[in-house]
Structure formats: structure tokens, C-alpha cells
């Protein structure tokens, strides 16, 4: 409706006036008001469509979502050459499920802020250049670097892109490929590797009767949320399982829990030891499965000690132990709010100890199957990679660095001074769809096509039962003729380097060839393997995994610092809307109210009512959160679902660049992180920053859906208090 000033609201107003007389239909014959245009819009017919194309009716094609590292299979509805809607591919790991980030990935594809041509830095700013010039610049600056003086810094990479990237690095004589994800499970993986002998085991939430989760937001952001949501539904059906969540700030999973416990941030391990203590001393659970050293540590943490350290009451501790004892098999998980501390490894180790003590290993945690083609497996990210990268860059190790699929200048703590360190790299290349914070600092920007415009294979990092190679096919023609797929660029670079064996006209041709060379055991009996794979959207290729070990490590806990000038704990919480910030440029995700605070389009700080009373602030009042690295001013949201000594600010907003929807919205809590490191895994302890909060005196209304916490006596949803429930239901 171009050039038409009737919008939905005016239409409804107009209908409200005219609609009263609907019986006589006055007001329904006003072509001058409800404009019906003639000759304003264009209609373009197909030139010669495929036989199955019917304008107005969609066709569904299989592809893969790349909005987060999970890599879910999707079906996309395509109509009139446009992809309009995505759903989960029913035959893949997640079934019909697709999370809201996946749904919103269409807005990544159609985003008005996409880069549509190569850009190069000239006279200090990025200016558009032709592809010829871009390749020339690449050849001049990156073509002749000495062996080992180039590096790749990417997000999760898998499939044939990983294969090409490895080949390219080899041609460059470099081993350095840093894989960085700000939201990761790296500490948990390190503990799994040490104890179970496998970094990513298979979790069976559906087989558990009770789940105790230390900050693992498995319905929101932990490992594979859509898959776990499905298992969780099974867990809650029939003989309803009990969910307990221990964390400093209520997550989506916490909000669903039967019992939500706010432990002092960083003391999750102590709580786990306390539960073990109760299980052994009160419930006579045999400790013989644990080494003596572990039992000695557990013996130190009786109820009183645990309450003193963690603030979790003896009653809560005993109830958690009772639930675990009475509902076997159980499952104990740990996630980011337990992991991302200086003592995160010990926290995760203590949680794992409970699994061993309760005999869950082999029942609800199992050996995971693997992808049969090892070279295609996903390279998952950690923040240790970021730290190592920063160090190498600072030492002047690289002449050329390539960035792809990650935005470290947004997610890295300012304390690291990554921007300053990157200035030591003479030539930075960013392969990106958007001018994000990192791309803006690049010397050469190569525009990528969207995941729905390109051919690709990828492998989901977590697929414990049936492993598969996920196929991506273009769901529509590229929106811009100047964007290129990552695969094509890798292939192009290999050719420019004169590497033998990559003489393919396109990545598409390379993929067809590479897929054709898969072993016969994977290809199976399909008449046309390629067409069959593309149509289904996946190729099953499972290699059976081994069983798990139970080699428990050191359990001794480190005391959490009291804080001094900075008494509060900063919790940079993750959620399924912004993720690590990559979704901040999607209006659907900005508009999506947070599950707990219901805030949209802005940042907020969650504090406990007691903390708010002490400070004298009300909802919408600004507080200044100050760490030893700087401060942020942010509006408060007051809620009981946060520890009294914690202030939670969601991460993902506060971009300085990244397009019209992201720029200038909210604040970035990661910017004031202290450089605290978890020593065993080398991970950045993002929850380890101590802060002080003060009232600034400013006030602004918090943009929030609903605006009322109560039902104002209308009984829209009947509720019963926890006390009454416990008394009457005997739970």
C-alpha cells in the first residue's frame, strides 16, 4: 500500500464509527477512504516457473538455521521466490521445534542493514570497493604473509567450511584458528572431559525423575535448548519430575522450577557439597563410589557451614537432598552462572560429584554418539580462545587476521583493551553480513550471503543419539548480487593461493563432489544421494560412542571474596532473545519481552526488593553499577528472583555499531567486567566481577509489557502459595 495514509489504527477507528451501522453497511462503500489503488503497485510474473510453483501457495524446502551455534534443521516456506516462514525439520534432532531466535533469523536475512558490497579502509573510513579491488587488496596484504603470521578468529564452524578453513590455514602455514563463543559451556566440558572422559555426553532429561540444575538454563541458553525443552516436556508428563534450580538470577528454567534457590554467586559448589553431606549423613547414601579425598571434603560441609557460606538455608538444603534421594534416577546439571567464576571448575566438579554419588552416570548421563566423519565435526567455542588470541595479537604475532561469525569487540571486556591490541594487526579482514562493532574496525570487509541464500553443510555440536550432517540450500535468490557465501570465499582464497585440488567453479560444485566422496556406509542406497540429502535436509552419519568413566577430581572449594568496596556480584545474564548480542539487530527479538522482567527494546538491572529498599530506588530509577573497570547507568527492575547481593544485567544490548535496531539501545554489562579468569579451563569468569551500586537520581519509565505484577483480584490464573501447596500436596 505505497502512498496510502490508511494504517491499521485508522482503519479500526473508521470501522468503529461506520461499523455500528453495519446492518446497512454504511461506511463500507467509501473507496476514497479505504483506498483501493489502481496502477500503483507492480506485478511481475514468472518468466518460466518450475512446474510446482503456484503463486500464492508456499513450497517448503529443507535448510539449516545458523542463528546460534546449535545448528537446527529447518523447513522454510517459499512463496513467489521469497522465504517467508521457518519451522523445525520434523526429522531432525529437535523435531518440529524451532526457537524464537530461529524464527527471527528471517530478519537477519531480510535486514535492511546488511552489507551489500565489499568495503575497504581508505583514509581512515570504510568505503565501498569492487570485488576485483577487494581480491587485489587481499592478495597484496594477505597473499604473501610469512608462515604462521595469519590467523582466523571465528564463531562455531563445522561441516565442509571447517574442512576448507583448515586447508586454507595449512596453505598459509598457520595453525591458528581461534573459535570464540561468548555463551559457551567450556568449563562444563572441561569437567566432563576430566571426569567422564567425554566433553559432551548425552543428557537424558526425560529419563530423570528429579533434576537439580546449578545455573544450567537448559530451556533458554544451555547447550541445546529446543532439544531439552522437548525432553523436559516428557520429564514433566505422567509421573511428574521435580525440577530444582540453584542460581543467582532466575532464568527461564528457574522460573519453571518447583524449587528455586538463590545461592550466593560462586558458592554453587558448596551447596552441592552440602547436599552430598546430607545425603551421606542423613540418608545413608553410600559414599563408597567416591574417593576418600572427596568424602573428606564433603564431611567439612555440614548444613551450618553451607548456610554460612552460601546463604542457602538448612531447610532448603535438606529438601533438595530429600527430593534427590526420593526420586531416582536424578540428574544434576551445571551451567554458566555456576561455571563462570574463578572457582567455576570446582563448582562444576561438585555438581558432577552428585551425579556419581547418586548413580546417575550411565542412566541420565550417557556416552554420546559421534559423527562418523570426524573432519566435519563442529569446532565449538570458548572464551579461553579470546584470551589466547588477545595475548598473541598483543605480542604482534599476526600480519593478517580474519574474523567471521563473532563480534569480540562487543563481547570482550573493555579491560582487555582488545581494540587497542588489534591495532597491532596491520591487516584485519572481516567476513560479515553486518557492520558490527568488530567489522567497523576491519581494513577489508567481505559481504557474506545469508544462510538462506547459500549452499552449505553444517554439523550440530550436540546430537548425542543420531548424528547427522545438516544440509543448507538456498531458499531464495540472493537479495544482493554482491554478497558471497563463506564457502565460496574460502574456495576463492584457496584458489588465489594456488592450492591444488580446489579447482571448482563454486562452493556448490565442491560440496557436490565432497558429498559424493563420503563413504558408501553413509551414502546408503539412495538413487540420487545428493538430491535425496538436499530434499531431506540431513545425512545421518552416526558412529557409536563409548561408555563414560567416573574419575572424580579435586573437590576443595575456594572461598568467595567478600568484595570490600564492591560488595555486589554482577550477573551478566544470557537469554534467548539477544543471545550474546548477535540478535540485537532483529526487531522481533528487541520487541520480545524478557521472560522474567517483560522489558523490551532496552536494558535493565534486576535487583532484589530488599536491595532496592536499602538503596531507596523504585522501578525505573537509574542506578550506577561500578566495577574496578568502569561503570554503567541502567534502570532498575525490582524482583524477588535475584539474590540480594547480586545485580543482574542481561547481555546483548548496548551496541555502538551493528545497524539501526541495535545501535544505542541499552547498555552492555560485559563492558565493565573485571579480567577474572577460571584458572583450570582458562575461561573468562564472566560472573566473577564485583560491583557497587548507587542511586543516580535519574528516572525513566521502564518499557515493559503488562506493567502490573498482580492479577488485581481478577483470578485470571488461579494460584496457591508455596506454603499451602507444601502442606496440602505434601511435597
Amino acid at each position, binding site marked *: 500500500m505505497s502512498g496510502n495514509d490508511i494504517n491499521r489504527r485508522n482503519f479500526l477507528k473508521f470501522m468503529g464509527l461506520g461499523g455500528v451501522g453495519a446492518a446497512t453497511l454504511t461506511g463500507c*462503500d467509501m473507496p476514497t477512504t479505504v483506498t483501493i489503488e489502481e496502477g500503483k*503497485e507492480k506485478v511481475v510474473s514468472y518468466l518460466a516457473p518450475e512446474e510446482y510453483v503456484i503463486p500464492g501457495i508456499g513450497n517448503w524446502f529443507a535448510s539449516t538455521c545458523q542463528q546460534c551455534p546449535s545448528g537446527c534443521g529447518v523447513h522454510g516456506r517459499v512463496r513467489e*521466490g521469497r522465504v517467508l516462514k521457518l519451522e523445525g525439520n520434523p526429522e531432525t534432532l529437535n523435531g518440529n521445534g524451532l526457537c524464537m531466535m530461529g524464527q527471527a533469523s528471517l530478519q537477519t536475512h531480510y535486514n535492511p542493514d546488511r552489507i551489500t558490497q565489499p568495503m575497504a579502509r581508505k583514509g581512515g573510513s570504510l568505503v565501498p570497493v569492487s570485488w576485483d579491488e577487494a581480491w587485489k587488496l587481499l592478495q597484496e596484504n594477505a597473499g604473501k604473509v610469512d608462515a604462521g603470521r595469519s590467523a582466523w578468529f571465528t564463531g562455531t564452524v563445522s561441516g565442509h567450511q571447517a574442512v576448507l578453513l583448515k586447508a586454507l590455514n595449512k596453505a598459509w602455514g598457520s595453525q591458528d584458528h581461534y573459535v570464540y563463543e561468548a555463551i559457551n559451556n567450556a568449563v562444563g566440558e572441561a569437567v566432563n572431559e576430566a571426569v567422564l572422559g567425554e566433553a559432551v555426553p548425552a543428557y537424558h532429561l526425560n529419563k530423570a525423575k528429579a533434576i537439580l540444575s546449578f545455573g544450567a538454563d537448559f530451556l533458554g541458553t544451555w547447550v541445546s535448548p529446543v532439544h531439552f525443552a522437548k525432553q523436559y516436556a516428557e520429564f514433566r508428563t505422567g509421573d511428574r519430575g521435580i525440577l530444582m534450580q540453584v542460581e543467582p538470577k532466575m532464568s527461564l528454567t528457574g522460573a519453571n522450577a518447583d524449587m528455586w534457590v538463590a545461592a550466593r554467586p560462586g558458592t554453587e559448589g558448596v551447596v552441592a557439597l552440602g547436599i552430598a553431606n546430607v545425603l551421606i549423613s542423613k540418608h545413608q547414601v553410600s559414599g563408597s563410589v567416591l574417593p576418600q579425598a572427596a568424602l573428606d571434603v564433603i564431611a567439612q560441609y555440614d548444613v551450618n557451614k553451607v548456610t554460612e557460606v552460601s546463604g542457602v538455608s538448612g531447610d532448603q538444603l535438606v529438601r533438595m537432598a530429600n527430593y534427590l534421594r526420593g526420586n531416582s534416577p536424578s540428574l544434576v546439571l551445571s551451567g554458566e552462572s555456576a561455571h563462570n567464576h574463578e572457582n567455576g571448575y570446582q563448582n562444576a566438579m561438585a555438581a558432577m560429584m552428585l551425579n556419581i554419588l547418586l548413580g546417575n552416570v550411565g542412566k541420565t548421563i550417557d556416552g554420546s554418539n559421534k559423527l562418523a566423519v570426524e573432519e566435519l565435526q563442529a569446532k565449538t567455542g570458548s572464551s579461553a580462545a579470546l584470551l589466547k588470541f588477545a595475548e598473541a595479537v598483543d605480542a604482534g604475532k599476526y600480519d593478517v587476521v580474519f574474523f567471521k561469525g563473532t563480534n569480540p569487540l562487543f563481547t570482550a571486556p573493555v579491560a582487555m583493551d582488545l581494540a587497542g591490541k588489534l591495532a597491532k594487526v596491520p591487516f584485519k579482514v572481516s567476513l560479515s553480513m553486518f557492520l558490527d562493532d568488530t567489522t567497523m574496525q576491519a581494513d577489508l570487509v567481505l559481504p557474506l550471503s545469508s544462510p538462506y541464500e547459500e549452499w552449505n553443510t553444517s554439523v550440530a555440536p550436540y546430537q548425542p543419539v543420531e548424528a547427522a550432517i545438516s544440509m543448507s540450500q538456498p531458499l*531464495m535468490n540472493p537479495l544482493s548480487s554482491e554478497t558471497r557465501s563463506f564457502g565460496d570465499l574460502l574456495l576463492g582464497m584457496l584458489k588465489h593461493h594456488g592450492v591444488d585440488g580446489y579447482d571448482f567453479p563454486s562452493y556448490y560444485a565442491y560440496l557436490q563432489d565432497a558429498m559424493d566422496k563420503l563413504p558408501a556406509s553413509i551414502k546408503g542406497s539412495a538413487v540420487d544421494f545428493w538430491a535425496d540429502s538436499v530434499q531431506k535436509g540431513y545425512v545421518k552419519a552416526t558412529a557409536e560412542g563409548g561408555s563414560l568413566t567416573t574419575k572424580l577430581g579435586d573437590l576443595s572449594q575456594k572461598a568467595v571474596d567478600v568484595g570490600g568496596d564492591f560488595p555486589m556480584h554482577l550477573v551478566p545474564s544470557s537469554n534467548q532473545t539477544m543471545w550474546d548480542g548477535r540478535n540485537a539487530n532483529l526487531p522481533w527479538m528487541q520487541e520480545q519481552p524478557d521472560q522474567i522482567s517483560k522489558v523490551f527494546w532496552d536494558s535493565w538491572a534486576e535487583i532484589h526488593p530488599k536491595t532496592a529498599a536499602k538503596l531507596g530506588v523504585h522501578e525505573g530509577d537509574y542506578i550506577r553499577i561500578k566495577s574496578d573497570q568502569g561503570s554503567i547507568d541502567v534502570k532498575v527492575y525490582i524482583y524477588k528472583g535475584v539474590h540480594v547481593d547480586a545485580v543482574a544485567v542481561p547481555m546483548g544490548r548496548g551496541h555502538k555499531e551493528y545497524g539501526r535496531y541495535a545501535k544505542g539501545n541499552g547498555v552492555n554489562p560485559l563492558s565493565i567486567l573485571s579480567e577474572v579468569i577460571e584458572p583450570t579451563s582458562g575461561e573468562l569468569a564472566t560472573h566473577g566481577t564485583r560491583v557497587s551500586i548507587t542511586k543516580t537520581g535519574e528516572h525513566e519509565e521502564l518499557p515493559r509489557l503488562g506493567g502490573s505484577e498482580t492479577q488485581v483480584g481478577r483470578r485470571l490464573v488461579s494460584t496457591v502459595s508455596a506454603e499451602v501447596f507444601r502442606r496440602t500436596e505434601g511435597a
Partner: protein
Amino acid sequence: MFVSNNFLSEGCVKCVGKTAKRFVSMVFAALLGFGGLMFVGAAQAEVPNVVPPEGSYSGEDVPQPIEFPHDIHADVNEINCMYCHTYARRSKVSGIPPTSKCMGCHTVIATDKPRIKKLTEYWENKESPEWNKVHDLPDFVHFTHEKHIQRFVFKNEGMDVENVSEVCAFCHGDVKSMTVAKKMKPLTMGFCVRCHEANDGPSDCWKCHK
């Protein structure tokens, strides 16, 4: 099914239904020497079981890249509307025919005419003409051709599909007498609702406003 490399790739054109066959044989007959013969338009036929909507409108002349003569096709040559607007019975839109469909005939017929030369130029450049939309509805109105064609033609006892143009004319006017189409009916909500009332069509708001 998978997407081909190019959505707009050239595919084969398949003739649809017996109307097409008849038309093609007719064309050959014409080429064989009946060239000068004028076909007489079919007599106005009643559409059974329908109270046609009332109302008229005098639309603007909408210029088109090629002045497509509906009269020559639908009246003189008696081509069924749905031969070209083939999606009307299956989809919400009736569809502008693919350029390949035009070329199916016009690689041999009337190739010397200026409009056909223009069309051939588009085809050879692998482009489709950008037509200007004549019959448009606001975005908050969901209209589907399929339901209407099914109700008035295919599920309408005693209705001959050969006379479909009479049904099309309810909303589009007598296109057979036009060159390029022109809006002849008001297409307002009142126009729709009165017809729905007269013919027992659905009256739920959300049938159209969804």
C-alpha cells in the same frame, strides 16, 4: 523437491486441459487458411445459483508496458480466462501468466505485430514485463480467488466451465470487451458483503480480515 539454482530458469511449458488443445488446434486451423474468419463471441450465459453482485465503478485507465488485448484473446479467439490465469482455481491469486505461457503461442502467432515484438524482446532478455496492478485490495483484506471460483464454477451445479468469464465479470467487469483491464466494480467492503449476504457467503470478520 529442491530449489533449482535459478528460480527463473526456463522450464518447459505444458498445455493445460482440453481448452488449450482446442485452442492450439484452432490456431493451426487458422494458419491453414481460415485466417480471415472472425469468430463470433459466445452468447451471454447466465450463471446458475448465483445472485450477481451489484455496483459499478468507472476506473482509471492504467497504462501497461504492453497493451495486452483481452478482447482479442478472450472474445475473438474465445480463450478461456483460466487458460492464462491458471492459478485462479487453486490459489488466492489468479496469477499473471508466466511469460513462457505467452511465448508458447507467440513464437509462431502474430510474430510481426509490434506488441509481440516487444514481448519477444522481454523473453529474449529473460525478463518479465512489470505490469501495473489494476485490481488491488488493501493489505488487511484477505481475498482468495480459489474459494470464489470453486463456489461459482466447479462446485456449482449446472455451471459450464466454458462460461467462467461470466463469473470473473462479477468483480472484474466485462474484460472480454477491454484491451488492457480497467477497474469496473467498486470492490469495497460493502460490495463484498452485499454479495456474501445475497449468496450465503461467510460473514465472519476474520474470513477476510486475518
